[in-house]
């Protein structure tokens, strides 16, 4: 069942403070978090989080399309690397 709209999105409060601190510093940094349950807010766009998947911190570059999703969605706990073949990676 979907979360009630009147409650608003859930996000661990301390993430907001750290995200603002990171943005203010302007440094090249990864914010390592365990909070997979937190919703991605517009304030996080442009930052890079390292989201724990039980094994390591996978880098998550937040963009506009990810707002409203949870951090955990981008850090799978079971992985299949697949084959590289002709696949390409775009540098962000």
């Amino acid at each position: 069942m979907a979360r009630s709209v009147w409650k608003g999105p859930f996000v661990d409060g301390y993430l907001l403070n750290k995200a603002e601190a990171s943005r203010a510093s302007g440094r090249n940094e990864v914010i390592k978090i365990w909070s997979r349950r937190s919703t991605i807010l517009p304030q996080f766009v442009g930052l890079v989080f390292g989201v724990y998947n039980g094994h390591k911190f996978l880098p998550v570059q937040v963009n506009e399309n990810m707002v409203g999703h949870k951090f955990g969605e981008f850090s799978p706990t079971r992985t299949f690397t697949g084959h590289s073949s002709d696949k390409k990676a775009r540098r962000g």
Partner: protein
Amino acid sequence: MDAQRILMGVVGRPHGVRGLVRVHSYAAVPADLASYGALSDDRGQSWTLSWRGEGIAALTDASGRTIADRDEAAKLVNRKLFVTRDRLPEPDEDEFYLADLVGMRAVERTEAGERSLGKVLAVHDYGAGPSLELEGGALVPFTRACVPDISVAENRLVVAMPDEMEVRDERNGDDPS
């Protein structure tokens, strides 16, 4: 990894009695496998592939003879199909083939010169931008800030390791470990 040959697919089980086979394409767009022309297999034979249905193809050997018999097709099961790197189209600016990135030497610039970080083991992308896994387990976001310089010709890339900031709830802690 052989940089000149890139694994593009594998021949699967026969389909029907007229020599058609299932082909598991690893290409980003599976149907593109046929557009690369002749594919070489792991035994050195050359094959041209033409799709007959979704995931079903006819294979023609170098002499122009198409496999037309199920028994013959069954002998090709698990053959790996390769394409040479130079047949892939040039990527756009700031785009890189994973096949080029994997195996590259990663170095970090320091005041004393350059420090080796090992090779790139894998490129991960789970919908939140690609990241490079280096020898030793480090994960680096594939961004201009973290990977400012890439030289495919020299098989080397420069990594600027990002600072790390740990964030956890001081009240009850959300680190399960």
